[in-house]
C-alpha cells in the first residue's frame, strides 16, 4: 500500500509516517503544493493525506487534479481549520474524508483503512483477526463463524480496535472516535468502560478470546500476545 503525505509541518509528518509505516504502508512525503502535484501526477497512490494549508497554495488543488486524472486514489484532507465551508468544499470536489487538527494517529489510521476498503469495494471483503471476522459491508461481526449481535457503538469499537491492532490507543482517542467532541472526556470514559465490558462479554460468550488489553493509565491495546 502506497500513501502520499502532503504536509509542510515536518514534526507532524514525522509522527504520521512513523505511525503508518509500522502499519506496513509505504509512505512518501512532500511539503509543498508543486511537488505534491508532480508526485500525484507521476504515481498512483492508494491514499493521499493532504494538508489544505500549504506554503505555496491550497491543498484542494491537488484533489482537483487527482479527480481530473480519474485516479482511484483515496483522499483524506487534514486541516487546522475547523471551518465548515472548508469541509464542505473539500468533500464536494471529491475528498473521501476530512480530519481536523489535532487528530489522533489511530483515527487517521482507521480512516485510511476505511477509505481504502471503500475504494477497493468488494462485498466479500472481510477483516479477520484470529477467530474474529468483521465484515464492513454487512456491518457484522462473527466469532468462530457465528454472528454476534453488537450495538452500533460496539461494532465501531471492534472495527477501530482491529484497524489499530497491536497499537496502544489512548482512551481519549477511542472516546473521540465514538462520540466526537460531544462529550467531556471523563464522562465518555465511563461510557467507554461500559461498552468495553459489554463487548468483551459478548465475544467471550461465543468462545472468543479477550484481546483487549489494558495499558496502565493510557488506554488499550488490541493484540493476541
Amino acid at each position, binding site marked *: 500500500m502506497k500513501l502520499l503525505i502532503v504536509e509542510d509541518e515536518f514534526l507532524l509528518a514525522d509522527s504520521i509516517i512513523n505511525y503508518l509505516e509500522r502499519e506496513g504502508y509505504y509512505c512518501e512525503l512532500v511539503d509543498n503544493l508543486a511537488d505534491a502535484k508532480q508526485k500525484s501526477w507521476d504515481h498512483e497512490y492508494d491514499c493521499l493525506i493532504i494538508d489544505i494549508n500549504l506554503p505555496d497554495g491550497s491543498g484542494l488543488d491537488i484533489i482537483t487534479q487527482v479527480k481530473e486524472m480519474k485516479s482511484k486514489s483515496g483522499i483524506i484532507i487534514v486541516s*487546522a481549520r475547523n471551518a465548515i465551508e472548508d469541509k464542505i468544499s473539500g468533500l464536494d470536489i471529491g475528498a473521501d474524508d476530512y480530519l*481536523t487538527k489535532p487528530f*489522533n494517529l489511530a483515527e487517521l489510521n482507521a480512516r485510511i483503512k476505511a477509505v481504502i476498503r471503500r475504494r477497493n469495494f468488494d462485498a466479500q471483503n472481510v477483516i479477520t483477526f484470529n477467530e474474529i471476522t468483521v465484515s464492513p459491508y454487512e456491518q457484522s461481526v462473527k466469532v468462530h463463524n457465528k454472528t454476534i449481535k453488537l450495538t452500533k457503538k460496539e461494532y465501531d469499537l471492534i472495527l477501530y480496535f482491529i484497524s489499530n491492532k497491536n497499537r*496502544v490507543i489512548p482512551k481519549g482517542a477511542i472516546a473521540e472516535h465514538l462520540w466526537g*467532541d460531544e462529550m467531556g472526556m471523563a464522562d465518555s470514559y465511563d461510557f467507554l468502560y461500559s461498552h468495553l465490558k459489554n463487548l468483551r462479554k459478548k465475544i467471550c460468550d461465543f468462545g472468543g478470546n479477550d484481546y483487549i488489553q489494558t495499558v496502565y493509565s493510557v488506554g488499550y491495546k488490541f493484540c493476541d500476545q
Partner: protein
Amino acid sequence: MKLLSLSNRYYFVGLLIISLIAGITSYFVIKSIINNEFNDKLFAEKEELIEELHQHDDILNSYNLNIGDNIAIQKANSDPQIKTFVRDTVLYDKYEKKELNYRQITFSDKVKDDFYILTITKSLLSTEDLIQGVTEIIAIITLLFFSTMLVLSNIISKKIWKPFYATLEDIKKFNVKKPNPLTFNKTKIIEFRELNSTLKLMTNQVSEDYRNLKEYTENTSHEIQTPLAIIKNKIEVLIQDSGFSEKQLTSLNQVYEATSRLSRLKDNLSLLSKIDNNQFIEVTELRLSPYLKARIENVEELISIKNIQTSFRFEGDPILSIHETMAYVLFNNLIINAIRHNVENGKLELILTNTYFRIKNTGKPLNVSEKELFERFKKSGNHSESSGLGLSLVQRIVRYYGFSITYKNIDSWHNITITF
C-alpha cells in the same frame, strides 16, 4: 422622542409664554391709552360746558346739550368748592335695558353770581367695545403667528434634517459582515457633510477591524492547532514503546489529555468570538420538535448508561430562524449539560411550547450562584474536563437571537427555560 416633536415642544412652550406676555401687556397698554383719551375728552367737554354756560344765559334751562351724554346741573347756595374729579359708576340704561358703565366728571362753577355743581356723565360702552375689539385682533394675530411658526418650523426642519435621516437610514443598513461602502447623498449643510465623512471614515475603520479580527481568529486557530497536533501525535508514537514505567505512562497520558482539552477550549473560544463577530448571519427555518428528538436520540446511549428517564412534553411546534451550527451548539450543550450533571437513575424532561423551551433535570445542587451560572469559566463541581464555556456559549447564542434564558432550581430539579 423624535427630534421634530422635541423642537416643536420647545417652540410651543416658548411661543406660548411670549404670546401671553405680549397679549396681556398690549391689552393693558391699549386700555390705558383709550382711558386717557376718554378722560381727555371728558375734560375737554368740561371746558366746553363752562364756556357754553358763560356765553349763553338760557343754557341753564336746557338739559340737552350737545356736549356730553348726560349733564346734570345743580344750583348750590354757597360756593361748594368742589375740586374737579372723575369717577366710574354704574347706571341703568333704559335703551339697552341693563346696567352699564359710565364715567362722570364733577366740578363746580360760578355763573352770574350763582354757584352750580355740574356733572357730565359719559357712557363707557364704546370704549369697552374698542378695547374688546383690539384685544380680539391681538389674539387672532397671535394665534395666526403661532400656527404659522409651528407649520413653518415643521416644514423647515423636515427639509433641513432630510440628509440626516437619509444618513440614518444608510447606517441602519450597514452590516460589518457584508460591508458595502456607504454612499451618502450630497448635502449643502456643512455639519451633515462632516457627519457623513466622519461616518464613512468610521465604518471603513470598523470593517477593516472586523476583517482583521476575523483573520486573526482564524489564524490563531490554525497556528495553535498545528503544534497541538504535533504534541498529541508524538505522544501517540511514544506510547507504542513498551519501555515506559507506569509513572511515565501516567504523565504521558496527562500531557495527551491536556492537549485535547486545550484544543477543545480553543474551539469553543473561537466559536464564542465568531458569535460575537456576527459570523453566523445566515439562518435556516428549523422545526424544533423533530430536531430536539433527533438530538436526544443522538445521545441515547449516554442517557441509558446513567439510566436516566427521559420524557417529552411537546405542546407546540415552533419554527426557529437560526443558524444550524448555533442551533446545534445551543441545544446540544443544554442536553449534554442536563445529562452530565444528572444523577444515576435521574430524570430528564423536555418541554416545548410555541413560546418557550424548557429543559428540566434532576441533579446535585449548584455550588455556583444562579447569576454566575452563565458566565465564562464558571464550573459547578470539579469537572476538570469541562471547559466551563458551555453555558456561556448557550447564553451568547440566546442573546444573539433575542431570546431570553432563565435558570430556576425547584425541588432539586434544575430548570433552564429559553423563551423565544
